[in-house]
């Protein structure tokens, strides 16, 4: 959808056509879901958060001023929804890990349970990358995720996260360096030699 098409859809929704919202959902659901998945660490929470983000976007659509791209506004909203989820998770740390009926309750920090079906052939690599990302400090994981999944520009990242441009650059750099370090540490990454740029790297 071009940004003009998006604007037209938004106008329709704002004038009362609820159904017009669906194409916007379909357009952005993959990125919204993946963002939530990276930030929250499990599919159930990500699905819930993605839903909440879209519904919130619908009810506050009137406040989208078109100064940023709609996707950026939406991913910012998604990020905030996920931050709330993480905050609530921290605040409701269960004393025991099982509730009365024996079901496992969730662990407070990024929870790395993935359903078995999701594991691809290169399962080790996927898991290694996921683990490395989970090991990042939250601010690094957040900025890296918004940049690579949300596709936000540095300027958009600065606005979304209320940072100076210089901080965006240094934080992204730090995030990627830490990712490298983490992958090397876990034995899943052999830094390529400088003269052979194409060789080596993560087995992913």
């Amino acid at each position, binding site marked *: 959808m071009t940004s003009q098409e998006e604007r037209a859809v938004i106008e329709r*929704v*704002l*004038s*009362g*056509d*609820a*159904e017009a*919202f*669906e194409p916007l*959902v*379909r357009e952005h*659901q*993959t990125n*919204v879901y*993946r963002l939530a*998945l*990276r930030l929250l660490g499990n*599919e159930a929470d990500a*699905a819930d958060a*993605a*839903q909440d983000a*879209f*519904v919130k976007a*619908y*009810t*506050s*659509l*009137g*406040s989208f*001023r078109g100064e940023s791209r709609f996707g950026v506004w939406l991913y910012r909203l998604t990020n905030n929804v996920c931050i709330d989820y993480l905050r609530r998770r921290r605040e409701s740390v269960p004393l025991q890990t099982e509730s009365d009926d024996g079901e496992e309750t969730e662990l407070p920090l990024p929870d790395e349970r993935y359903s078995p079906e*999701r594991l*691809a052939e*290169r399962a080790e*690599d*996927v898991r290694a*990358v996921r683990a490395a*990302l989970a090991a990042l400090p939250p601010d690094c994981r957040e900025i890296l995720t918004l*940049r*690579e*999944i949300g596709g936000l*520009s*540095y300027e958009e990242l600065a606005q979304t996260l209320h940072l100076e441009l210089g901080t965006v*650059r240094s934080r*992204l*750099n730090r995030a*990627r360096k830490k*990712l*490298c370090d983490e*992958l090397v540490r876990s034995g899943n*990454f052999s*830094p*390529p*030699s*400088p*003269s052979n*740029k194409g060789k*080596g*790297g*993560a087995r*992913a």
Partner: protein
Amino acid sequence: MTDHAVYEEQICAMLDGELSAEEEASLRAHLDGCEACRAFLAAMEAVHGLAAKDLPEAPADLAETVMERVRAQAKPQPKKGKVVRFPYKPLAAAAAAALVLWAGSGLLGALRPKGAMSSAAPAAASGAMQAYSVATADEAAEEEAPQASEPTTYGTNSVAENAGAPMFDAAAPMEEFARDAGEAPTITIRGTQILLDGESVAPEELPEALEAVGKKGVHLEYEDADAETAEAVEALLAQQEIPVL
């Protein structure tokens, strides 16, 4: 920040497509002569995009579930600029009592300069006001009504004349209370401003104003509404159990 930290950031930015042609040319010139930076570039290229790799698609039912919730929203999205004014309706008792206090203080203000007035005057004044407020809205708009129900302790014309002035002003706030008897009011959120039937309401006044509305419900409109303000209003409505129509 050391030189190489700057280069590192530039290398990152280059991979993200955030360097100008000039900056990139300058960086490449440096890379030609710096093995450490070339190694760094290689490592960055290897991890670039990893955060987005191997991620599943959104659940197949996500869009449909969202649309179900969207349809269930009490009100579709903001209609622009619709503010409805209600016709006069008979005053409800609570509204009348409030009106008495309002107009009564106005009347007392008018009476104060006349030092000759005894303490009986304010009481009588509110008595006149009460008689006034029981009348229907249409009647109250006329100056004659208050004079007709004037208690006999008043002999002077000046009181009656004074009674006329604030009475007339009382017609304005009556619109505010008229809503209580009939249709549901409209709350409009315009930016960070809150309007109740077109009249601006300070956020701290809103809970009180909503109490007058009762559980009948409100229409809610968004005109370029600020998200935080909208959320706060919605939360308040939910808290007071006022349905959004």
